[in-house]
C-alpha cells in the first residue's frame, strides 16, 4: 500500500499555476484517504469563483501525480465548493478532457497555452528572487550578466529558478548564461537593472496574490492564516 508521505510528496509537485506554489503548501488539500491501491483526494480553493481553468489544471495534475505513485491504481480527485465543481468532478470521473468538461466554452483542446504564460511568469519571478539574493550577497548587476549557471552556489532560490528554467525547455547546463529572458536570449549587461526592475513587479504580482489567497482560504475554512513572507 502506498504511504501517505509518498502520496503527499507526489502532490507537492503539483502547483497552482497562477500562485506558483505547491497545492500542499497552499493547504488546498482538504482530505486524503489511502485504501489498498486507491487514493481519495479532495481539494479546496480560496473562493467560490476561483478561475475554472486553473481549478481544472490543479485537479487534473493532482490526479496524474497520484497515478504516478508506485502502488496506486485508482485515484479519485474531487473539487469542493467551487462554481464549476460539478462540471470538473463529472469530467474527471468520466475521464473527459478539458474541452469536453466545458463543452462550448473553450477555444482549444487543452490549456497548454494558458499554462505556458504562467510558466514564463513563474520563471521571471524565480529569476528575480535568485538575483535579489545574489545581489544581497554582494554581486553587481553587471556581474550577474556575465555569470554562468555553474557559477551560482546552491540555494533554494537557485534550485527553483533552475526548475522553472528547465520547465520552459531552456538550457540549464553549467556553461549556459545565468540571466536569460523566457525565450532563452541572454540579457545584456546594460539591460540587467531594468530587466530586474520589471521582473520584480512580476514576482510581486504572483507573491502578493498568493498571500491574498492564503488569507482568503484561512478565512473561508477557519484555519490559521500564515505569517506574511516577503522578499
Amino acid at each position, binding site marked *: 500500500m502506498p504511504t501517505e508521505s509518498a502520496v503527499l510528496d507526489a502532490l507537492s509537485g503539483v502547483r497552482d499555476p497562477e500562485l506558483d506554489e505547491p497545492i500542499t503548501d497552499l493547504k488546498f488539500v482538504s482530505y486524503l484517504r489511502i485504501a489498498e491501491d486507491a487514493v481519495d483526494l479532495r481539494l479546496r480553493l480560496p473562493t467560490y469563483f476561483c*478561475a475554472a481553468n486553473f481549478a481544472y489544471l490543479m485537479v487534473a495534475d493532482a490526479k496524474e501525480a497520484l497515478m504516478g505513485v508506485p502502488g496506486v491504481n485508482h485515484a479519485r480527485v474531487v473539487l469542493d465548493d467551487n462554481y464549476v465543481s460539478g462540471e470538473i468532478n463529472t469530467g474527471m470521473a468520466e475521464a473527459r478532457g478539458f474541452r469536453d468538461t466545458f463543452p462550448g466554452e473553450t477555444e482549444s483542446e487543452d*490549456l497548454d497555452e494558458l499554462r505556458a504564460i504562467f510558466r514564463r511568469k513563474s520563471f521571471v519571478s524565480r529569476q528575480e528572487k535568485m538575483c535579489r539574493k545574489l545581489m544581497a550577497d554582494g554581486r553587481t548587476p553587471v556581474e550577474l550578466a556575465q555569470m554562468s549557471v555553474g557559477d551560482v552556489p546552491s540555494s533554494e532560490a537557485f534550485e527553483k529558478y533552475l526548475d522553472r528554467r528547465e520547465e520552459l525547455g531552456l538550457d540549464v547546463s553549467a556553461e549556459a548564461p545565468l540571466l536569460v529572458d523566457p525565450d532563452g536570449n541572454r540579457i545584456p549587461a546594460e539591460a540587467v537593472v531594468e530587466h530586474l*526592475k520589471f521582473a520584480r513587479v*512580476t514576482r*510581486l504580482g504572483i507573491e502578493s496574490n498568493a498571500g491574498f489567497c492564503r*488569507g482568503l482560504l484561512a478565512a*473561508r475554512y477557519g484555519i490559521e492564516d500564515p505569517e*506574511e513572507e516577503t522578499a
Partner: protein
Amino acid sequence: MGTGERWIGRCDEDPDRSASRCRERRNALYEKDGEKYFVVDGHTHLWDASPENWRTEHWGKGWIECFYGYHQISPEEYHWPIEKFQKYGEETMMHDLFEVGHVDVAILQSTYLYDFYTNGFNTTEQNAVIKEKYPEKFILNGRFDPRDGGNGLRDFEALAKKYDLKGVKLYTAEFKGDSKGWKLNDDAAKPYFDKCLELGIKNIHVHKGPTVWPLNRDAFDVQDVDYVATDYPELNFIVEHVGLPRLDDFCWIAVQESNVYAGMSVAMALIHTRPRYFGQILGELLYWLDEDRILFSSDYAIWQPKWLVEEFVDYQMPEDMEGEYGALTPDIKRKILGLNAARLYDLQVPSEVPQEEPVMSGSEPEYPEQPV
C-alpha cells in the same frame, strides 16, 4: 451644530430648514498629526444580495459568499454576520462612510449581474436613490454592456442623460446568457466609448473578474485596456484592483498610457494582513505610474473606509524597503486619498487641504522587453 461637527442628514431634514446653511455644513475633514485629508472613496456599492433577490442559489448565494470571504480579511471588529452583509441598507452605508469612515465624497459604482440577482446586484437606478437623497455626498456612475444589443446604446444614452453621468464602471467578466464576458476592444464596444466622448463621460472604471469566456484564456488579462486607452486618449481608464493579480501587465500598460489610472480597491485591504506586500505594491505604482494616478477606494461594503483610511494615513514604508521605494509623505497620501479623484471628477477641494501640483512624471525609461 458647531463648526467641525458632522452633518450627514438630508438637507430637507435640516432642523433650521435652511438650504444655504445646509450646504455650508461640510463634514469635518479627517485630520491626523496636524495634516488634513480630503477623502474620496472611489469605489462603493449599495447592493442587495438577500436570498429573496437570488435568481438561483448557485449564483446568487455563491457570489455574495465569495465577497464575504474577502470581507473576512478585515480586522475582526469590522466583521459582519452574513445576513447583514447580504443587505445592509442606506442608513448603515451613510454611517460607515460619512459618520465614522472619514469619507467626504463617495463614488457609487454599479454592478448589474441580472443573471445572478432578479432585481440586479446594484444597478444605477438603485444607487440613484441614495444619490438623490444626498447629492453632495455621492457621485453616481453608470455602466454599459455592449452585449445589450439593439436598444443598448439608446438606453445607455438615456441613463447618462437622466443622471448626468461623468463616469461608468465596466464589468467585462459579467455573465450574460451564454456569454461569460467581453473585451473592451470588442467592435461592439466602440459605439459606447464614442457615446461616452459625446456625452462628456470621461472616467471609465474597469473591473476584471475570474469568469471570462473562453475558459482557456487568462480571465484577468488586462491587455484590452491598452487598446482602448490608446484609441481614446480623452478618456481616463481607472483599472480597479490595479489589475491584481496581473500587476506586471497593468504596470506595463500604465507606464505607456498616461490616461490609465490605478484604482486601489482590494489592494488597500492588504494593508492590514499583508502590510509589506501593500508597501511593495504601492511602491511599484509610485515608480511606474506616479503619485497622481493612484486612487483610494474601499470597495464598500466588502471593506469599510474607516480602518483603511486610518491605517493608510498611519502607514509608513517598512524601513528596509524605503531605500528601494522611498518614503510616503502626507502630500502623496493626500493625492491618493482624494485629490487625484477630485481632479478626475472636478470636485471642489476645501481650501484648508494643501494641494501640491501634479508631478505628471511619465518619464520612466522604456521597457527593455515585453512583459511575459
